[in-house]
């Protein structure tokens, strides 16, 4: 930051001229200006400090699924305002503005994919849509994903992110925690692996259901991961939170996570782990077979 400090107006001007809108962005990890194209190529990870920027679901799918292998399930399941919930805006208005903002129908995309050749059931949550809160659509799509995984004997991978329950759906939202967990009981009983990947931020109701029920639990560096909000905890206990609280290193140390995996390693790591859990791919399931 000092490079562009107030006492160097000349430099600031020069940089501004060189920085057409959107070509550069500032990294919240190291406060340096980084070249956007470089950050995109590096899976939206800062090349200087390794800060993991938010990623939308298209990018996530491209990162994890073999090219052309993703077949979406339940694309046309959508939320309705069945409680007639009115806050500062109605739920209906919230849904519409988030659809407009993201171009997506709700907060999760699910489907079948191949990961280095292995068929998997893959779900990706997207914080950009209403904070990836879990309403009936998220709960239903995750449940169907797991149930199909069980029926088709597929490993299930869910890239988790969530601000929690979708309060616009009242108690129906809370019950999605039970529904998804029940589906995971059956998937586990069938001897199939389930691996949630916790990304920034994964909290509250999603955290207290499918995000923490993995055979293995992986997390992205820097992600905020916890049950209660930091502000709520602070207000309740009237004291400051320890450094690194609810962050991956803290949680690894306290025994929740199996591994913290940088984005660039995630696909290969998942493939390796699934090889261990399910046995390596057999020739009868060659990578080239379309899904």
């Amino acid at each position, binding site marked *: 930051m000092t490079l562009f400090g107030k006492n160097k107006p000349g430099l600031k001007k020069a940089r501004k001229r060189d920085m057409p809108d959107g070509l550069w962005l500032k990294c919240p990890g190291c406060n340096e200006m980084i070249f956007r194209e470089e950050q995109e190529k590096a899976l939206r990870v800062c090349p200087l400090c390794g800060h993991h920027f938010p990623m939308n679901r298209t990018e996530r799918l491209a990162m994890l699924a073999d090219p052309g292998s993703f077949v979406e399930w339940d694309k046309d*399941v959508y939320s309705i305002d069945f409680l007639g919930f009115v*806050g500062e805006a109605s739920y209906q208005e919230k849904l519409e503005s988030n659809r407009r903002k993201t171009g997506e129908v709700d907060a999760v995309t699910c489907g079948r994919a191949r990961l280095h050749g292995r068929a998997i059931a893959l779900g990706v949550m997207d914080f950009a849509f209403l904070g990836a809160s879990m309403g009936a659509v998220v709960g239903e799509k995750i449940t169907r994903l797991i149930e199909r995984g069980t029926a088709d004997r597929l490993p299930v991978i869910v890239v988790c992110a969530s601000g929690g329950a979708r309060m616009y*759906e*009242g108690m129906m939202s809370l*019950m999605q925690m039970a529904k998804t967990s*029940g589906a995971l009981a059956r998937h586990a009983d069938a001897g199939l692996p389930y691996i949630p990947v916790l990304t920034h931020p994964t909290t509250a109701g999603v955290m207290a259901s499918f995000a923490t029920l993995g055979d293995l639990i992986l997390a992205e560096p820097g992600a905020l991961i916890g049950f209660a909000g930091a502000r709520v*905890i602070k207000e309740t206990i009237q004291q400051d939170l320890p450094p690194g609280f609810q962050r991956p290193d803290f949680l690894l140390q306290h025994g929740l996570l199996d591994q913290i995996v940088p984005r660039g390693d995630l696909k290969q790591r998942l493939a390796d782990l699934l090889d261990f859990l399910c046995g390596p791919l057999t020739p009868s399931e060659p990578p080239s077979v379309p899904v």
Partner: protein
Amino acid sequence: MAAYILPFEKPLLAIQNKIEELRRFSAEQGLTTSHDVAQLEAQLDETRRDLYAQLTPWQKVMVARHPRRPYTRDYITAFVDDFNELHGDRLLSDDHSIVGGLGWIKGRRVMIIGTQKGRDTKSNLDCNFGCPFPEGYRKALRLMRLAAKFSIPILTLIDTPGAFPGIEGEQRHVAEAIAVNLREMFRLPVPILAVVIGEGGSGGALGIGVANRILILEYAYYSVISPEGCAAILWKNRARADKAADALKLTAPDLLELGLVDAIIPEPPGGAHTDPPAIAAQVRDAILKQLDLLAKLSPAQVLEQRYSKFRAMGVFKEGSVPALTPPPIPEDTRP
């Protein structure tokens, strides 16, 4: 019993004061005023019945949190015979905000597990105001698995503002403790019956709430978020909790209509705390009825019924997603 008056009960207080005044006056003067007192008491009953017949959702939340409301241990004392409390999660400690143990209800073996609130500062500190730590959920699961091993039906009594939001809870992974309970409760091949007796506070309540049947007391509530928490998010003002309580559809009749609870246990007008023996009898009878119905199911049917019950929860649509309506045009750009 010293009266504890909720804000909306002020009309009752006025009549109560009149009754007391009349009694004192007649005692001083040596007069017989029993007729007048009886009349006022009838008026009190009628006013109370009218008041409670039209409680707002927020007023019901206040009744559910009434400091004299019967708690888990009160129900256990009232109708559980030979209660053997069992302690500890075998990992760290014994969380007093979740009580569990074996007992008999009218000759039926039951594993009883419930969240416990305190009545005064000392007991509230002991049970952490009814807000469980991860150890509480892990103790509950240990006891539920014990019950399953010996084919004992499980009764859970829910009355908690929620799991405790603190550093220890996060360090010991309260989210994981709740999640594991949700998953494992689907695996227990014995009947599970849950009764929301006061506050059903979000995930902290659901953590012992995956049941074959869910009953709720008339003035209890069950909500995804506290009305105050919801108001803080939506209106940046906890004082709008009354509005949030309306919007959240957290009352017993709302939940019954949404298919999220199976039956409502009626309370005396004035709330459960005004007649503890009566509400205990109501709750006991409702429990017995459900336990006898569930006893008819095979272990496989018990598992299937529980799964289908929660599997069906969710309101959404499927088909061609409706097109977005054009965004509203901001005022200053209108022609």
